[in-house]
Structures are given as C-alpha cells and as structure tokens.
C-alpha cells in the first residue's frame, strides 16, 4: 500500500518560492524551510539538501544577496534578502507560473 507522500518541490518551483518568501523580508535558511512547510500547510516540504544549493545558486545569479547577521537568539546566521534583480525575476516567474498553473487547471477541470 502506498503511503501518502508529501509533494517534492521541483528546483525551479523552489526557487520561485524562496524569492517570494524573501520579498516579505530578510530570512535565513532555516526560517525559509520552516515557512515553506508552514505556509503550505505542511503540504510542501523541502530538505536542506535541496534548499541550500538553491540559495547558493540564487546568490550566484545575483537574485538574492546574503550577509552575516545575528539571529533572534543572538547567534551568527547567514541572512538572505532579495536584490533588485531578484525582485524583477520574481515578477516574471510569477506571471509565468500563473499562466502555466491556470492552463493546467483549465485542462484538469474541463478535459
């Protein structure tokens, strides 16, 4: 019998989510992971093994930037925030996503 599975995030989708989360404010990696689970109502899960490479890739592409700051419990943490380029990228990807998901929805509903 198949166990109910949490949906795995595709890389591109994960990056879109990260960008969206960072638009609301600066976050460090652990926060981002928690938020994804929280906001999606535990439907979406992300592992550190997927999240951190994505963060580094986004940073490498200049969409987000990081600095070392102190976290709520006063420890050194790497905190990410959105760059101007990231903001633009988010808008573009979001539009694409909506177009795409709308199309899929339409097919699922009517076909």
């Amino acid at each position, binding site marked *: 019998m198949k166990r109910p599975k949490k949906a795995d995030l595709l890389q591109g989708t994960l990056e879109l989510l990260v960008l969206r989360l960072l638009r609301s404010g600066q976050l460090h*990696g652990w926060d981002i992971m928690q938020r994804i689970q929280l906001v999606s109502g535990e439907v979406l899960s992300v*592992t550190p*093994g997927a999240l*951190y*490479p*994505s963060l580094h*890739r986004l940073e490498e592409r200049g969409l987000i930037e990081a600095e070392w700051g102190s976290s709520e419990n006063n420890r*050194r943490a790497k905190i990410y925030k959105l760059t101007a380029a990231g903001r633009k990228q988010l808008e573009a990807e979001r539009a694409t996503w909506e177009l795409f998901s709308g199309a899929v929805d339409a097919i699922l509903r009517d076909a």
Partner: protein
Amino acid sequence: MVSRLKRRLQTLLRKREMEQDLKEELRYHVERQIEQNLKAGMSPEEARRAALRDFGGIEQTKELCREARGVKLIEDLWQDLRYGLRVLVRSPAFTVLAVLTLALGIGATTTIFTVAYAVLLKPLPYQNADRVVYIWARNTRQSVNQGYLTYSDVFDYRERAQSFESLAAYTTVVTNLTGAGEPERIEGFSVATDFFRALGASPLLGRTFTAEDDLEDSDVVILSYGLWQRKFGGDPSVIGKTIKLDMFWGNSFRVVGVMPRDFQFPERSELWTHASFTDPPTHADTHIFRAIGLLKHGVTLAQAQAEMDGHARRLAEEYPESNAGWDMNLVSLSDYIFGKTRVALYVLLGAVGFVLLIACTNIADLQLVRALHRRREIAVRTAVGASPARIIRQLLTESLLLSLCGGAVGLFLAFWGIRLLHAFGPQSIPRLSDIGINTGSLLFTAAVSLATGVLFGIAPALYVSKADLNELLKEGGRTATTSPAGKRARNLLIVSQMALALMLLVGAGLLMKSFIRLREVSLGFAPENILTLSISLTRADYPQADPRRTIFFKEAIARIAALHGVTSVGAISHLPLGGRGVNMKFATEGDISVNAEASADLRVISSDYFSALRIPVTSGRPFTDLDTEKTPHVIIINESFARIFFPGLDPVGRRLTINGLGPPSPSFKGEIVGVAGDVRHRGLEEDARPEMYISYLQNTVWPVMNLVVQTDSDPRGFVPAVRREIEAIDKGQPVFNIKTMEQLLSDSIAQSRFNMLLLASFALLALTLAAIGIYGVMSYMVSLRTHEIGVRMALGAQAVDVLKLVVGQGALLILAGTIIGLTGALALTPVMQSLLYGVSPTDPLTFAIVILVLAFTSLFACYIPARRATKVDPLNALRHD
C-alpha cells in the same frame, strides 16, 4: 555578467573562507533544528540525532552548494586534466605519434607565420608608410614596366602633380671615402631635399636636407649610423665637419646629419648626398632616378594615379621626343618593397596551413578510432550519470592536452626552423635576418594549438557522446564501430586529406618544374670556372675622361692574364645577372630609321670579355686591342638588337649614334662591327633585351669595372693572387664583390630555389601524413572485417579477391579525394602564376605526375593492410567471436 565573473573569481580566491561560511551556515541550521526538537520535548541526545537525520547528507549538500557556485567547473577541469593525462600516458605510442605529427604541423606553420608576420603584417618602419607611394616609369610599347625616371620626369611631375605633399627622387651613388682611414668603397643614395620628409624620418643628430641646401647648392651629406660608428667612432662633433668623397661633382662634403641605426630605405645605404632638382629640364636625359611620393591626406592611390595619367598624356604631347609612350605607375610602398615575396609567402602560408589541416585530420581519425574503442567505457560512465556535455568536455580536454603538447614541441621546432631560414633563406626576403620568434609568434602558436585541439577533438567527441547507451551495452561495443556514421566520418577525413595533399603536391610540382626550366635557361655564357670582382677607381686619382682609367684596367687585365692557371680575362661595366646596365637612346643612320625614343642597354667591355665568358660572336668580329681612341669608333650589338631594329637585314657595317653618354662627348658615333649572342643580363627570368657594347679603350666614362677571370681550376683559389696583382698597380683602389660566376648564378635563383624547396618539403610532409592516414583507416577496416574476410575465404575467395575488396575500397576514397583536390588545385593555380617561370599553372604533365605519385603512394598504403587481410586464416577468423 561582470559582477558574476567577479563573484566567481571571489569564490575561487576565497575558497577557504567560503568553505568556512558554508560550514557555519549549515551548522546554524542543525543547531536551530536541535533547539526546536528540544522545545518539542526530546532529550538532548535524541534531539541531536533527529536533527542530523532530518538534514540528510551534510557533505552532499556542501558539494551541491559548491557546484551551485561554479567551483565545481574548475574542479571538474582539474579532474579531466588528470584523467586525460592518465589516458595519454597509458598509450604512449599514440601520444608520441600524435604530438610529433602536431609538432611538425604547428612548428612549420609558426615558422612561416613568423616570417610572414614580419614581412606582411608588421607596419613598415616609416612614419608615413601608408601614404608613401613608389613611382615606376612605364612604357608599355617598349615593355618597360618597372623603369626609372629621368631628371626631366622628376622635375615635370613634381611641378604639376597636386596629389602629393612632396615628390622626392633619389639615385644610387657609389663612391670612395678617403681621408678617414683605409680608402673604402661606399654605397649610398643621392636624394632630393624632400626624401626624408616624405618618409617621415628624423635624424639622430643634426638635420636632414632643407630648401636652403637647394638654394646654396652646397655639397652636404648625411651619414648612416653604421658609417658614423665605423669611420668616425660615433663622435657627435662630426656634424659640420668636411669629409672626402669621390663624386663626379665634387669631393669635399659637409656632414649635416646622422640617421638613426634602423633607418634604411629602400635597402641598406651608408650615406645620403643631396641632389638638387632646380635646374630646368632638358627632356633629353637618361632614366636613372627612382622616386617616391607622399600623398596628401585623403588622396587615394587611384586618384593620384588618375592625375598622373593626365599629366603623362599632356607631357607626351608637349615633349613627344622624350615623353611619348611613357607614363608613371604608382604602387604602394609595401607592394614595392615586398611585391613578389608577398605572393610567395602567402602561398607558403597556405601550404603549411594545409599540412596542419592534414595533421589534424590524421589525429581526428586516431581519436575517432580510440573513442570508438572507448565507447564501452563511455557508455558505462554515461550510465552512472555523466552528462553528454561532461563526456564531450572530457574528450576535448584530452585533445587539447595533445594539441598543447604538440604546440610546445612545435614552438621548439619553429625556433630551429627560423635559424635554418636565417642560414639558407634568400636575401630577397626583406629584413629576413631581423626576424625571430616574437610575442606575435607565441600568441599564434597558442591560438593554433587550441584551434587544432578543438578541430580534431570536437568531431570524435560529439560523435561518441551521441552513442545510444542501450545499443552499446547490448552489443558489447563491437558492431557499433562499423556504424554508418562512424564510417562516413572516417571516409570524409581520408577524402579531405587526399584532396589537400594533392593541392600541395601540384603547387610543389609546378615550382619544381619552373625551377628546372630556370636552370635550363640558356644563359648565353658559360659560368664555369669564372671569378668575378669589381674595382672602383677613385675619381680624384683617375678623373673622368682621363686615359689613366684605361691604363689601369689594361694593366690589371694584363697582369691577371699572366697568372698561372688563368686562361682568359675580360672586363665589363655591368655583370650579367646583376642588373640593368644603363639604358641609352640611340639613332640609326642611312635607310633604316628607328623611333626617336628607341633605347637599348649599353655595356662597356674589354676585348676579351666575350671569350672569357664564351659568348659567341655570331657575325662580324669582337673588339680587339687595336680598337683604340685613335681608330674609328666601333659598336657590337646583341642578337635581340639586330632582330628588333634590323629585321631581316645585316647590321654589320651600319652606323649608330648612342646619345646621353657622359663627357668627353655627349654622343658616341660608331660602326657596328659584330653581333654577339644574347645574354641573360637582367637575371634568368627576364628575356634578353636589345643591347649595345662599346670598348673601354674607346670610352673612359666608367670608373667601376668588373673583371671576369676564366681559370683552369676552382676559381676561388685565385683570389689572393688576383688581389695581389691589383694592389701592385695601385693599393688605394678598393676591390669588392669577389664571387664566382656560379655563386652569382645561384644567388640569382635563390628565391625560386627557396620557394621550391620549402613547398616541396611541405608537400612531402603532406604526402607522408596522408599516406599514414589512409594506412591507418584501411588497417582498421581490415581488422574489423577479419571475420567477414574469413567467411569469404572459407567460401572459396582467393587472395586476389580479398586484395581487390580491400584495395578497391581504398581506391574509391583516393579517387574521390583526387577529384576534389584537382578542382581545388585548378581554383588555386592562378595564385601561383607569378611564381612560375616557363610553366603554365595548369601544366598537364605536372598534374598527371602528381596524380600518379599520390595514387601510387596511397594505393601502396592500402596494399599493406590488404596483404595482411589475405593472410587471414579462415578457421581462426571464424573462431574470432
């Protein structure tokens, strides 16, 4: 893009810091998770274990992060390099063969490129080089294309032409420098005021010539750096001093300047005297001046040419006597200096390019075979997750390693090649001795190495990376090697090799035939056992039109002729193969009239000149010592003269007036007493032109005479004795240009020999490489078809049938290559035209021989593996699988 690059560089440079950051970032994550677990009520031990378990592999995550940052790419490259090196070291025979092949190709290409770069690409060392044009006098009717100008030409065109900022004429002067150590013969130029300004050349010391020199008409001179160092010890106070030069217009010259060390134009010169072009023109003078013009800014060569053509037409109307038929032909400075060398270098550059391409195809082929063998390995790597891009990268890295090794060895060969060129290259390549491997060559070698690596690496890599995994693993990688695509690729390589080799062979064949033709040219004289030397009499000691000149040469000839072993001695004003002589106008008397502009080269000779060089006197008589100032003047003409000006008539007994000869009288009237055979005076490639000879006993104009000494054994052995005899007459007269006639002959064809030898070696190299290539392909094919051949033989096929099968397949490829190569060769031959003598660029015999040579060589290369195929034991072959 830039910021990204910066980030990537930072990543590389601050690797340790980055690693530390990464570690800390992930540790923070784990610690937060532990905290949360503790809050959820786990024991500390449990909280830690759960956190680590949830995280997954920390090291994998780190690796993925590194990859995300692009550090991975560099590490992959390093890995590829190490792997590639291991692969290359594992098959040393292949590696050595490939590196050597490439080294030969790249070395040859670099050598020729270095020479071509210096000669063709490097800007000429004159400030105004791009605006300076050289001016040839041209007379198409007299088939004079590269003639000199007259004083009147220089004067007229300089007055009229608007296209030029300045127009400056110059002419060679040969003089003896006395009063500063040993008397020395000096070669230099007498130049117009604007000469240096036109070239944009500044003096090292003092000044160049100015308009005041024109006004004062004083005797001033500018020294070359070399002469200044050698004769005046580099003393700056030489400026303003007077030196003794032996010119017909004076002998004391004030030094006004010294030119920098590297200034020379157009060839080496020791000094420059000043020539005024202020006297009104006579329109009855000889063609002795060369000229350059500095175009005004914005004026093109074509515009200037059009303007000059207009002036030429008008001048021909105004002065039909002197100017009819003449016009000026402007060429760019680089065309003037490099003209023929340039074509030769382009051809050679193309040839080495072909050799390199053939070398590339050979290695591409080897790589292809190796890649096919390695398809299993590659398939396995693909199966465990290597992307096609990664596989291509790996194979390309190997190819680049090979080509860079080849480039390094090639560079070494090029150093050696340049040394070889210095030693054996012809003097006609300008500035050859200054040429060496430079930054340009290094960059070129690097670029060529990389390009060849990609060129021969990319096809095999692409081909193999596309391999169908399942097919391969299923078939064990054997049958796949005979896949149509692989075979097509290899056939294509062979066909292109054949085509390239054929084109090179045709080029080499044509040059060889041309060279043989050149050697077969009837010189008109016998060069064997002849010593030649020049003597220049100082005018101060032997004034113009003074019998002392004649007496000196008469005594020199007599003394040398008396030496033991000397069989004959002659003297001439301008040696054969050495150049132009002096073009003189002449008029005929009596019933035959010639054009007013008729001219012929004049040479002054002694009575024994013809016998010393065994030049036949075909009718009439040679000069004798009895033809002197006191007897009637006599003239000998050559056969060309007789044919052109006295067609079908007997010239002997007719009278000529030669105009424009210097004092004592401006013209020389005489009777034609003989007709001599044509001599290739202007060089082997130029047909003989109309010529007139007069006896030195009847004209004392020439202060420079060349002695030709016929000996009964090696003429070089006679040098000390001959020198001794001349010094016995007068120690103060310089003797120079001591050479054997055979040396002169060899020098005169040095450029042709050089072109021919180089192209022939490249062609041989190409032929060898192509033969190796086809041999490799056919061997491989035989080894693949061992099984099939075994079956055929088991079914009764004879050795002959097997031979036919294998060789037949090779022959098809050879045929295809030959046809393509022929088309290419025919398309390229027009380029060769100017390098050839007496051979058509589409010479059928050369083409036929070349095709035969190529076909035989490559068929032989097929035959060896084919024979091996006939030795296949059917039983073994069938058991093979």
